[in-house]
């Protein structure tokens, strides 16, 4: 189970780490795991990433950061982080990511001395990344890469060509408006709006409302309709 008896080689058993996670038991868990592997290691536990200062960074080798936010918050975090990264170049950064931040993290965070790990990372991999100073290389863990973004629907293959008014109706629907309300706002007859919705669904080869909403909130749908990333 969790207690791995075999002694793996640790290049740096004196590893000093900062752990940033909103989840107390996760922070504690990491501390226990590290102590078990190497009693000489030390940890600083933080709940909020804003507590991370360059003073702290001077005294550590590794920062382990569990990202756990919406995409918008993440973009703010990125600015803060890239500033810190520039200042303290000796530190190795390990990010633990949820799936929905994977692509944006690869784009924004992946620089030298950075590892991106999944929430479901096996223990051996975490240890490897923490203790064995892996040099300047950047790493995306296999388990992160293998996680599937929710099934890509058949519709993704179809090149959609919605008309302007169909897009407009769908965009309003995705905001939670009823057809009657849309009709009032657009000063059109209810039947017109309904027909536009229907023909949009036909073009997308969608049969039910549920499928339509699933499409509206899928990556593909949002791109098609130019809806900003849907958070919360």
């Amino acid at each position: 189970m969790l207690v791995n008896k075999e002694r793996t080689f640790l290049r740096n058993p004196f590893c000093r780490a900062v752990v940033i996670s909103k989840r107390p038991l996760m922070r504690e868990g990491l501390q226990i795991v590290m102590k078990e592997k190497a009693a000489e290691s030390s940890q600083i536990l933080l709940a909020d990433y804003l507590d991370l200062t360059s003073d702290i960074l001077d005294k550590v080798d590794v920062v382990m950061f569990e990202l756990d936010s919406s995409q918008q918050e993440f973009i703010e975090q990125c600015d803060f982080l890239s500033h810190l990264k520039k200042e303290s170049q000796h530190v190795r950064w390990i990010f633990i990511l949820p799936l929905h931040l994977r692509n944006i993290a690869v784009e924004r965070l992946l620089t030298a001395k950075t590892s991106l790990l999944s929430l479901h990372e096996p223990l051996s991999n975490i240890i490897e990344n923490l203790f064995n100073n892996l040099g300047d290389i950047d790493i995306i863990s296999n388990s992160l890469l293998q996680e599937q973004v929710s099934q890509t629907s058949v519709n993704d293959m179809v090149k959609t060509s919605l008309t302007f008014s169909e897009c407009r109706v769908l965009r309003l629907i995705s905001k939670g408006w009823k057809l009657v309300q849309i009709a009032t706002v657009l000063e059109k007859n209810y039947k017109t709006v309904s027909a536009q919705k229907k023909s949009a669904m036909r073009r997308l080869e969608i049969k039910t409302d549920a499928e339509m909403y699933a499409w509206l909130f899928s990556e593909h749908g949002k791109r098609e309709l130019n809806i900003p990333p849907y958070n919360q």
Partner: protein
Amino acid sequence: MKKIITTSNELSQIMVIMPCVLTAAGIIHQLKTGPGIKDAINIIKDIDDAYDEILNKPHSMVVLNISNSSKQLADEIKFIKWYRKEKPNKTIVIYTHNHKVSILKYLSSLGVRVIISQYELPSIFMEMLIKSFSSSIALYSPMIKKILQEQMPGELTVCEIQVIEQLILGHNVTQVAQHLGRDVRTVSSHKRHAMEKLGLHCDKDLHVLGCDLTGK
């Protein structure tokens, strides 16, 4: 005031379904060193393995992780439904990483009694876990309570769950009425009541929840 809690069966375990190894290590440490609980702990990393473990081994309680990713979430919801049917008398403790209001409301309307946020301090986690052994009322950790804003949703009735599930699958009210052999108006009022209990305001909210629950 230290009270030692054990269940009647000495072999019984606490099943912890938790894919994140670090959090699992934290839970083990808390349960072993904290006061009160002396049951053995069984950590299950993959929820697909949980079904066999639960049928084959005696256990006192299940602690289930609820994740943010919708594909995982769909599996976890499936598990809760299965477990409630299989072991209606056993306690299932939700240890949630997901803090969406609609998801939390849906969970509690499925008849889950104990919901603890993963942002909660270890001491609160332990305290609630011990409480859940002895009490039979609904327990929500402070953060969850705050999110649900004290207005605890009522449990959904069997009919309401049936209707909501079919709606989420993409049938419309008329079709559901035909499936169930009910009047459209009956189904529609089931839908209305269920949405009220779940705090959903419009069809969009319903289908957003649907997407989350089915992993689309």
